[in-house]
């Protein structure tokens, strides 16, 4: 599908992406401010890679995923995507006709298996919807294609006559994955795909996603809040805080030697399934900042134990400190932060 020569170029490159939501007040709905849900993020994903996006509630990771997909329209910025048919395009600026083509190659898996399937349509209709709406398959061929995809995600083809209420959470999530795969995409945004599932079912779905990536050469943007899951499945991970991307690095580097104090706190907070006592704990004080009225300078400064004067006034730049490792912190070069290995080693 993709030109082998492009393997060194990213499949997806996000530049200065912003998504602001207006806050309206009063009878005439005057705009009094903005919720800066996604505030200037930059990232790239190579073909066949899985990039993780983590953060706590209100960090903007779900909004970022949806803006990249153009499920919601970004306020500004570029989303450069290497489409198999159209070539290199800016998804954020496409007209409707071209957007329809890109929707074949960029697909999404949703978090809630109970809310993401229309309860009034059969599985055949749900999985076949993109094929029908995009004019890719009809009639018997469409049924055959749906049967093929259901088999790929581990469901029996005869299930296509059933409705979603016949299935458990894990099975519904497989149906959601089948729907995402139907038009043979190259890139999938996984929006917390296992958060709503039981532990044992989580494992099945994670394995499935990994298998499919190997089989079909897929590229994933994996949005999640569970750091252990992200560590398991992602090649590189980005950390979001109140709309900003504060760190981006290969998985091992991020977890073992984080460069941002917020990442350090996250690592320290993960409850590890290991009863050895942890000594170096960094406990954050205070609450997550409000994206409608964020602090001045570095958004994290009120909760940061390494805060200095410059952090209160000037927003740090998102810089590449070591190869492939980006961080948004004034003091990143001088701090010696605790990663996971130091916590585990005992």
């Amino acid at each position: 599908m993709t030109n082998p020569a492009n393997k060194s170029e990213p499949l997806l490159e996000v530049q200065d992406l912003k998504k602001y939501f207006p806050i309206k007040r009063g009878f005439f709905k005057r705009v009094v401010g903005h919720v800066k849900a996604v505030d200037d993020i930059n990232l790239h994903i190579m073909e066949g890679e899985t990039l993780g996006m983590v953060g706590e509630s209100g960090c903007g990771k779900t909004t970022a995923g949806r803006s990249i997909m153009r499920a919601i329209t970004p306020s500004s910025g570029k989303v450069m995507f290497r489409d198999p048919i159209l070539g290199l395009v800016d998804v954020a600026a496409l007209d409707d006709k071209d957007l329809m083509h890109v929707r074949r190659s960029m697909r999404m898996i949703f978090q809630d298996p109970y809310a993401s399937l229309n309860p009034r349509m059969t599985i055949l209709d749900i999985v076949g919807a993109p094929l029908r709406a995009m004019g890719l398959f009809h009639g018997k061929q469409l049924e055959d294609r749906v049967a093929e995809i259901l088999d790929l995600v581990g469901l029996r083809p005869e299930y296509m006559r059933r409705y979603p209420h016949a299935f458990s959470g894990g099975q519904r999530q497989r149906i959601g994955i089948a729907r995402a795969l139907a038009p043979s995409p190259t890139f999938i945004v996984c929006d917390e795909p296992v958060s709503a599932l039981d532990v044992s079912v989580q494992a099945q779905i994670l394995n499935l996603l990994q298998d499919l990536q190997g089989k079909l050469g897929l590229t994933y943007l994996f949005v999640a809040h569970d750091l252990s899951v992200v560590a398991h499945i992602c090649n590189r991970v980005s950390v979001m805080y109140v709309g900003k991307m504060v760190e981006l690095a290969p998985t091992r580097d991020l977890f073992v030697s984080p460069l941002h104090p917020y990442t350090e706190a996250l690592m320290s907070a993960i409850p590890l399934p290991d009863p050895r006592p942890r000594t170096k704990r960094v406990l954050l004080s205070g609450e997550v900042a409000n994206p409608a009225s964020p602090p001045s300078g570095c958004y994290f400064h009120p909760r940061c134990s390494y805060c200095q004067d410059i952090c209160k006034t000037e927003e740090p730049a998102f810089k590449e400190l070591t190869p492939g490792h980006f961080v948004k912190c004034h003091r990143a070069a001088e701090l010696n932060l605790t990663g996971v290995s130091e916590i585990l080693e005992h």
Partner: protein
Amino acid sequence: MTENLIEIKNLRTYFHLAEGVVRAVDGVDLNIKRKKTLGIVGESGCGKSMMSLSLLRLVPSPGKIEGGEILYHHTVHENQDNALSSVVDITKLDPMGKEMRSIRGNQISMVFQEPMTAMSPILTIGRQITEVITLHQKVNQAEARNRAIEMLARVRMPKPERVIDDYPFQLSGGMRQRAVIAMALCCQPQMLIADEPTTALDVTTEAQILQLMRDLQEEFGMAILYITHNLGVIAEIAEEVAVMYLGKVVEQTDVKSIFYQPLHPYTRALLQSIPQLKDVLLRHDDARRLQTIKGMIPDPYQHLKGCPFHPRCPEAILGVCDTVEPKVIQMGEGHIVRCHLYDK
């Protein structure tokens, strides 16, 4: 004074529905020690929540406690030197009666998963806490308010004098959970039941709340029954762990043994199915596949013969595990397991 605060013997809580009988709790034996934390681990449908509700006689109808005993050894302070304990069987009490109501919120408290739905949205935090205080302690409103502010400070609520007049919707998730914990602890109970209290919280807030609960346990000298499906949280907070599956306790031991020497196939399968960070450090570029448990949790109306886990068990012994129910087997220091593999 006995070591055990609560002894649960063969507790059975069943739901008789038109479709059939759901055996939510099906013969559970557990001991909850004073001042210690017992963690209950299990997935959805294992009965852990129903068991905690049974402890407080809050089982929703049409559920009923069908049998078994819940022996509560509560302390009766005669004088400073001689604190006796007397026993009451909670299953025999009238769930709406005076004795049970004096236990709830006062001697045994509970904290739930969703703080927003656990609190009344139309009353201030202060009102809700003082209500608990005045219900169980003979103090006037002003004194109750003082104690409420003090309690909020002890759960490390920022600006407790201001928060006391706030409504739940004005607080963040972490603050609401603190308020709920304050409500639960304001009468200094002997035991706190926590049913997934941090599942709905962000990981940094969760770490704060877990630390808070550990500190409060020491301060108050109370037992904690902590229910969760998250094995990481169990490792953080529990001293002893019981694993539940389909209404039964399948393994129980101290927290270290559960993680380093799990015996029951279900426990082992659970541990192998969660992504572990230590593999991030050890692994090379090829991803490790997670071990999955085959099959699904069965239909709750169907009561299988033999061990409830046998259809999904990788080590099931044909002819034994599918016909005979495994007994509880003692395996060394306080380690019990319900499995034929260990039956000599």
